[in-house]
């Protein structure tokens, strides 16, 4: 085994029930599965059980980084794997900020969190110690930003640490609450905040100031320089200039910007909430995750005068990205930029996933319009564009003052099952969709993706290239192959772990070179094979937990609203799903019964 793996394979186990921790050398996993998602799914399987309650002590949260973390540019992400409280199946969520490098330079490759505490705690981890601390004073704080401020002041290691924390939403077990890192980045989707909340774990502070000796500094510097030039080149320029908000206008022009609960792909106010307009009028600062030259994080400043006193102002900072602009902007008919930013701000402070929050509210608005629910339920009038009332509704989702909001806090699927309006409740496998209405490949990829994210396979991009080149839509079988092939390769990128905005820079050849410079003996073809295997391992675990994709509801609204590639036939998505099921089931057959899949797979060994 190469020496690099030794520096990566220390795995920290935290047991919240017993307030204990221990460290294990897991070079068995890191040499076989590289790191990141490849390792995290194995640790999850070892520690979880098929029937674990997502909000019970038996659910586990695994964080993992990879061999390139903090070593090459844009290898800046942490993978988390856990069972989602939205749908009860294993899932994955990524975040940037300083989290990945802090874990790496605290000396760990993975962290496994088990059990649950009987009192609110936070945990502080550095190069030498692990401390459980009383979070009584932090629990219930109105804004997750304040929690960050307090811990920032109280903890050492400024610059080299991550402060992960949940907001009130996580404490209140809102199923789509997130885990915030460094104030403006998130493990956004799938409800990791609620899992932390159920464990009474308010925050995780990780301080990492170590360094590691390189096995071959000369080879390393050469590859480093090459990757650095690629990552700051034209491929990432638009993310530096306008951030992900650069997508709003092109998607709107294409008719693929989800608007007013996906009833249209065009928004008359798109220009007002575009990346261009936000940059011109509101952008105050751009930030980067550690080791990233791109700096895609865009912060707007909003100045607000207090109602009770003239000339008494405050200035707040709000991160904006494509997804919150879609979910809380076009999807709610909000074109008032100030209102949109205020709404994003409250979603941030409460610690909610902006995508799910926006989709839950757009369903509620339509249900209100159709009189399936009344003001007695909603407490405020929910009307397209009325951001002031949406701001109030967001807080109600968190505080759950009545049965209606307690139901909304479970996600759009539960709400629609109870109050009606299933046909316009946007969710695949009970998870609200990200902001693209590009065509059949994208929506099919949501149906079968592991993260339930547009980033699973980037199929919104495949749809758009079909439109641009005038190529006919591929058969569902072809589409399934394209989606799965892309998602499989991304397993390698997610095991390194590199940001997917750098996927153009990290070609197969570059990944091979980067690994070789660190002493790994692996080539492109082996990487591709391993990517497929990691893909199958993950989905086999999910199916073993009882995931039945054949029973999935395909939201009617998605099929009815035309995409740039026309209307999507339901049967198209179903065929993609069937292809996926067949592939994963064949793998399960090959490696043993589904029970064994979950507990132990003795799969072919990776070098």
């Amino acid at each position, binding site marked *: 085994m190469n020496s690099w793996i030794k520096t990566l394979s220390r795995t920290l186990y935290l047991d919240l029930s017993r307030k204990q921790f221990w460290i294990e050398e897991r070079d068995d996993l890191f040499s076989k599965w590289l790191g990141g998602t490849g390792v995290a799914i194995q640790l999850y399987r070892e520690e979880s059980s098929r029937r674990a309650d997502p909000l019970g002590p038996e659910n586990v949260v695994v964080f993992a980084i990879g061999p390139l973390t903090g070593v090459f540019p844009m290898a800046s992400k942490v993978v988390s794997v856990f069972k989602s409280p939205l749908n009860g199946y294993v899932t994955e969520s990524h975040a940037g900020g300083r989290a990945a490098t802090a874990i790496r330079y605290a000396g760990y490759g993975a962290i496994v969190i088990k059990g649950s505490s009987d009192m609110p705690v936070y945990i502080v981890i550095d190069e030498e110690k692990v401390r459980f601390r009383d979070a009584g004073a932090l629990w219930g704080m109105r804004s997750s930003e304040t929690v960050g401020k307090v811990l*920032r002041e109280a903890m050492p290691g400024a610059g080299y640490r991550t402060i992960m924390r949940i907001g009130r939403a996580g404490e209140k077990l809102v199923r789509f609450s997130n885990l915030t890192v460094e104030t*403006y980045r998130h493990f956004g989707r799938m409800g990791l905040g609620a899992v932390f909340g159920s464990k009474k774990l308010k925050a995780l502070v990780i301080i990492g100031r170590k360094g590691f000796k390189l096995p071959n500094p000369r080879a390393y510097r050469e590859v480093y320089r090459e990757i650095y030039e690629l990552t700051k080149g034209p491929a990432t320029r638009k993310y530096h200039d306008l951030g992900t908000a650069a997508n709003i206008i092109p998607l709107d022009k294409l008719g693929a910007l989800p608007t007013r609960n996906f009833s249209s792909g065009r928004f008359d106010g798109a220009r007002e909430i575009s990346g261009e307009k936000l940059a011109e009028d509101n952008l105050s600062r751009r930030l980067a995750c550690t080791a990233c030259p791109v700096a895609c994080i865009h912060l707007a400043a909003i100045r607000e005068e207090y109602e009770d006193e003239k000339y008494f102002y405050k200035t707040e900072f709000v991160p904006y990205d494509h997804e919150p602009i879609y979910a809380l902007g076009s999807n709610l008919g909000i074109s008032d930029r100030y209102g949109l930013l205020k709404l994003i701000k409250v979603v941030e402070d409460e610690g909610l996933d902006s995508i799910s929050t926006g989709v839950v509210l757009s369903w509620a608005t339509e249900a209100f319009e159709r009189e399936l629910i009344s003001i007695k339920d909603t407490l405020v009038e929910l009307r397209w564009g009325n951001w002031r009332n949406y701001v109030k509704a967001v807080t109600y989702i968190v505080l759950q003052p009545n049965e209606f909001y307690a139901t909304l806090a479970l996600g759009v699927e539960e709400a629609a099952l109870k109050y009606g309006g299933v046909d316009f409740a946007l969710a695949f496998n009970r998870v609200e969709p990200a902001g693209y209405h590009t065509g059949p490949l994208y929506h099919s990829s949501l149906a079968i993706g592991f993260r339930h994210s547009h980033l699973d396979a980037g199929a919104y991009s495949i749809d758009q290239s079909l439109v641009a080149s005038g190529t006919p839509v591929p058969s569902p079988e072809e589409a399934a192959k394209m989606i799965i092939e892309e998602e499989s390769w991304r397993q390698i990128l997610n095991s390194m772990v590199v940001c997917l905005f750098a996927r153009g820079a990290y070609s197969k050849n570059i990944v091979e070179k980067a690994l070789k410079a660190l002493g790994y003996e692996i080539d492109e073809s082996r990487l591709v094979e391993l990517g497929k295997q990691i893909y199958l391992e993950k989905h086999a675990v999910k199916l073993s937990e009882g995931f039945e994709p054949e029973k999935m509801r395909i939201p009617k609204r998605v099929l009815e609203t035309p995409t740039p590639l026309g209307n999507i036939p339901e049967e198209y998505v179903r065929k993609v799903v069937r292809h996926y099921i067949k592939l994963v089931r064949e793998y399960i057959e090959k490696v043993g019964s589904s029970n064994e899949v979950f507990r132990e797979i003795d799969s072919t060994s990776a070098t």
Partner: protein
Amino acid sequence: MKRFVVVDSNRCVGCHLCVYACTNRFGYVGVSKSAIHVRSAGGVERGFAVIVCRACRDPPCARACPVDALALRPGGGVILNTSKCIGCGFCVNACDIGAVMWDSEFMKPVICTHCGYCVSFCPHGVIALEEVT
């Protein structure tokens, strides 16, 4: 003679590529050997503080060293003689801007030598080398 300067810390996006570049000079990765440090100026929305030796002409760190391990560098700042250094850490306390870093593996200070290696890895024009007379 050249001196390392922070041109405009408001251009800093906090990517730490300078920090990694500095550590790389010694055949390491990470932050433990870096002579430059970047942290938020009280929350990232306020931007960043870039902390590094500013090449004092009469450096307090050198005056604090009990074993003369810090020799004056032409153009400002100091050169560390690691053979002389006993690792007492007085220099760290003597620097009011916090630019004497500490290598806790070797128990010696890390101070910028104004070589400028990190400058070529700053994507946003925050840092530079300038000629001094």
